[in-house]
């Protein structure tokens, strides 16, 4: 899942970005409002983490401009301003959640995951696709009762496919939602990672789970 982090305070920006990456998210980070708005408009992010007091365009203005063109991306405001009127204003301008600094990182992570689930219409943290069980909270995957060990990137890819199980997911979709803006990978990498993922998920004696639709993309689960 791809997250945009707009925060001007360097220590916070870097550690949140690192924490999110280690939790399997693809993270782009912007240090001011102008860069943040540019990122937000050029890529379809699943979640935007937005600070309010920013150099350049301030957070609330950025949110207003973003909502004028994009009503889908989930936005969580993370700010030191904790007065109720600030929260109300932020939520009224189209934010989906509000977290006051300082916060516990685990809580931010949980809220971001909740917003991702909402983005794909899933409420339960556990997704079942045929005999595979994907626990988005603990980032654990089991198939036929056996736990599968995945890297962060492989997990992110599988989760993205699982959230859209039964649908055709294009390479571009995968590219846009699983990889970071400045990653060096090209779309061939998607095929390589799908290959790695298949090896781990579709062990010997198990039926296929990731199907290829030539010229379109991939589908998780469903009939051959």
């Amino acid at each position, binding site marked *: 899942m791809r997250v945009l982090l707009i925060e001007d305070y360097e*220590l916070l920006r870097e550690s949140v970005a690192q*924490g999110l990456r280690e939790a399997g998210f693809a993270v782009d980070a912007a240090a001011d409002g102008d860069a943040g708005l540019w990122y937000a408009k050029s890529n379809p992010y699943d979640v935007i983490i937005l600070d309010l007091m920013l150099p350049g365009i301030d957070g609330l203005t950025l949110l207003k401009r973003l909502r004028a063109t994009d009503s889908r991306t989930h936005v969580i405001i993370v700010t030191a301003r904790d007065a109720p009127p600030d929260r109300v204003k932020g939520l009224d301008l189209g934010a989906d959640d509000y977290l006051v600094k300082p916060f516990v990182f685990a809580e931010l992570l949980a809220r971001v995951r909740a917003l991702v689930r909402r983005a794909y219409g899933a409420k339960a943290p556990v997704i079942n696709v045929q005999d595979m069980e994907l626990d988005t909270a603990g980032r654990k995957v089991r198939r036929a009762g056996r736990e599968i060990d995945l890297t962060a990137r492989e997990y992110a890819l599988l989760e993205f496919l699982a959230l859209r199980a039964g649908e055709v997911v294009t390479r571009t979709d995968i590219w846009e939602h699983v990889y970071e803006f400045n990653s060096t990978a090209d779309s061939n990498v998607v095929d390589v990672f799908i290959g790695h993922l298949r090896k781990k998920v579709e062990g010997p004696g198990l039926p296929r789970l990731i199907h290829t639709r030539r010229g379109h993309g991939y589908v998780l689960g469903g009939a051959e």
Partner: protein
Amino acid sequence: MRSLQSRLLWGTAGATLVVFAVAGFILFIAVRVVLVGEFDSALDAKARAVASLTEWKRHRVHLEWDAGQMPEFSAAQRPEYFEIWSGGTTIARAGALRDHLAPPTDARFEPLHEFVRLPDGRGGRQVAFRFKPRADEDDVDHQPAANSGARPDAILVVSRETAELDRVLARLRWLLAAVCGAATISAMGVMAWVVRAGLRPVGGVAGRIARVGNSNLSDRIAPQGVPAELLPVVERLNELLARLEAAFAREKAFTADVAHELRTPLAGLETALEVCAARPREPTAYEKVVNSCLRTTRGMHAMVDTLLLLARADASQLAASQETVDLEKLLRECWIAYAPAAAERRLTVEWDTSAMQTTTDRDKLRLLFNNLLDNAVSYADVGGTIRIAIAELSSSLQATVSNTGSRVSADEAAQVFERFWRGDAARTDTGRHCGLGLSLCQKIMEVLGGKIAVTSAKNSLFTVTLMLPRASREPERQALRDQPLRMSDEPLIHATH
């Protein structure tokens, strides 16, 4: 303290009573003058009748008196009295008169009226005058031209009791007093109603004021329907409320700023440590996080110190000590800490200083210089110039620190002393510059009895000018306070752009 209502009521009642009493008194006097005048006219007519009966006959004054003609002079129930004298002896007197009346000593030809006590002890009024008795035409000795000089004067006094007049006047007095009292009482009734009605808006305003301010300072007292006399009070109160609201808003904004400035690095620290502790890492990763956190902690430490200093200065708890300080020496000492950073940013430093002593607080001045030099080194453009100068003016010492590559426009120059104000670009800097440095400098200059001012032009020069009192003695300090801080328009150094 008595209420406005009772004060107005009793005041108007008293005034009404006085006005009615004076009017009644004047009316009484006027009526009395008229009645006494009428009484006197009647008395005069009677006296003239008596005088006309008095004749000069056979070389003596004689009264042709017929008691039946004027029964009022007989000894009846209420007699009137008269007596005529001529040449010191009584010629005639009324029959009712047992004793003689006292002859008036200085009777004139014009009648003299006065109140007297009548011989029977009652009050009365008399008229007295001197006259020439009529000469009898039948007198054989009558020689009008020759003996008119020998004809003597006669003096007549006629008096009459005034009981009737007194009764009328007494009745009038009582009537007027009663009218006056009744009028005052009814006027008080009307006034009570008028005063209550007139003061009702005051109660209304008091009620409005009572409702304001408990929870919401943005409330104002509506001036509609407020009486003109109370309008200034309401306006002043509204102004006061506006000032209070602004002060509270400033306080609130400052608190919000403090919260933001402390919470953000705190959030950074917490997240950095939490993410770092989430899994085992390479020693270099730990090292990196520890260093970042240490830098952040130092920044917070400095900010908390500055905030405390500012709070103490705000509460007037900062006292300046008095030491002899050489400005140039102190500036050069302070510079040592910033020289490496200046070299790293390839800054040219120009010194225009000479040894110059003053009496001031060394530690506070050092703190101030550190702030100015830190700003200059941090905000000068790479490869730019910093100029440090001291000059001696007539009553003060002037120190200036300027740097090229200013990011502050001329319009924004006045804002640099606001707490947490930062030029936009400066905001991305982490660590030391939290927007309190120049606020602190301004406070320090206040404590040291000096002045500070900033001039700036975007992408050109940013100059801070300090004016320090030459000595710590009060006259110099006062002189400096009164003197406007003049900023020279000519740039001290020319920008390299």
